[in-house]
């Protein structure tokens, strides 16, 4: 069984009981703090460093060849917990030779940033790696309509990300070599 030990506190000396030496020590500390380096970030001029896996505003990205990656499968729309995403499916525009294996493309893609909760499920569920939550964290607008990001805005925010698969290129070569995909 644990033994309780009562610590004997030494009685305070006279100078300790006036608290004045302690106050002087405190004053020294605050005074030396005045000359330390400041931690303030001058925000609009200086921006914080955003870590790699940051979940910012969801965006649509293109592959390094500048092609639209989204195939309008609507999985993100389905998984989105606050129902912020709305996709109007459409077909791939005619005459785009290198995308002929893709069947669909979004005609319109809207993410309502007033609903979005930045959970990142859309990024997780996307089979084409077309939607990413990137480092943009500050979105503002004057009206509710402005806060709905349309397809054009989403691509503008997203830009191009490196692709390690080129899924549809692989499928094309596979077919050309006579393999089923």
């Amino acid at each position: 069984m644990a033994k309780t030990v009562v610590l004997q506190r030494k009685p305070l000396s006279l100078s300790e009981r006036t608290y004045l030496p302690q106050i002087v020590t405190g004053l020294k500390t605050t005074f030396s703090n005045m000359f330390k380096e400041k931690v303030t970030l001058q925000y609009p001029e200086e921006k914080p460093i955003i870590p790699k896996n940051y979940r910012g505003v969801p965006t649509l990205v293109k592959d390094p060849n500048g092609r639209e990656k989204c195939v309008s499968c609507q999985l993100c729309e389905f998984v989105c917990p606050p129902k912020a995403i709305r996709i109007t499916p459409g077909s791939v525009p005619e005459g785009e030779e290198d995308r002929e294996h893709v069947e669909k493309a979004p005609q319109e893609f809207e993410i309502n940033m007033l609903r979005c909760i930045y959970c990142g499920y859309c990024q997780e569920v996307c089979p084409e790696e077309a939607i990413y939550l990137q480092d943009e964290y500050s979105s503002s607008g004057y009206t509710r309509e402005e806060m709905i990001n349309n397809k054009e805005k989403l691509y503008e925010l997203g830009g191009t990300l490196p692709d390690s698969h080129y899924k549809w290129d692989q499928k094309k070569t596979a077919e050309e070599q006579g393999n089923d995909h």
Partner: protein
Amino acid sequence: MFDFDMLLMVGLKFLFALLMIGAVMTMAGYSVLAERKVSAWMQGRVGPNRTVLPFIVHIPFVGKFLKGLGMFQPLADGLKFLFKEEMIPGHVNKLYYNLAPIVALVPALTTMTVLPFGEFFAEDGRTIPLMLANLEVGILFVLAVSSLGVYGIVLAGWSSNSKYPFLGGIRSSAQMISYELAMGLSLLPIFLWVSEPGTGAMGLSLVDIVNSQNDRAWLLLVQPLSALIFLIALFAETNRLPFDMPESETDLVGGFHTEYGGFKFGIFFVAEYAHIVVGSAIFTVIFLGGWHFLPWIADPWPATWVGTLLGIGWFLAKTIFLIFFFIWVRWTIPRFRYDQVMNLGWTKLLPLALLNLIFYVLLVTWLDQPTA
């Protein structure tokens, strides 16, 4: 018939009074800035550094430097208070609610009338102290009027008709009564010492106290205990941390000014800082040798207008250091609990001040006994 000399004298006095008010109010305004800046520096922040006048910012180096120091922040703060909506809550006693800020500000500004801040060397060899009114009982006047400031707080707390301001008002009056005694008692040995035969000073005049410290030891060095008690009581009287009972924003929301907003709150705010400015000046006058140079060293400046200006500058430097000290202490020590404040005032400071008085009475009597 017009008496032109009379008119001129009154006019000059009026002008001096305006200048003095301008100086103290400016210092109060910049104390607010200093408070924000110093607190920021002590906490590793930068403080206000955005406000600037449009034409100043284009001056190379200087404009940027002033902007970084936040030199125009008091202007912005003042204008903000001026243009805010004047709200009067429905449940207050309107007359006293409106009266309270004035009652708080007036004593703070009145004490400065007897405050000497320099000396002017007249051509006929006389030295004239620079002050608005050279009262023989200067320090009595200061003690009497400065404690009237509490009425503003009590009035604000009572007329707001709300629990937090009420508690703030009660605490303020209790604190003021407790520390007033120690403050007065701590000053008595000073006057005993100064009025010692042979020094020439025989009254309660602030000018005589300053001059008694010329090329001799400052009274801070002669009577450190009196200075300490006076300083602690000064902190309590100006409602500064660690004694800011009436405000104590953590437990009383905003204390006595919870129900105030806009310009009326601004007046309370300025009054608090005016108290600090005047309190620092009084401490400088009594314990730090006023406009005289260092202890035991005669004033190095000539007895002309240059000396007058340098003396005033030196006085201001000491006062500003004390204001800095007030701010420094505020951001170092946490607030006392209410009962601790009362305990410290009644059971520590008051007996200490009494013992101090008795000690100096005996000492001065022993020193003064005629050498047989």
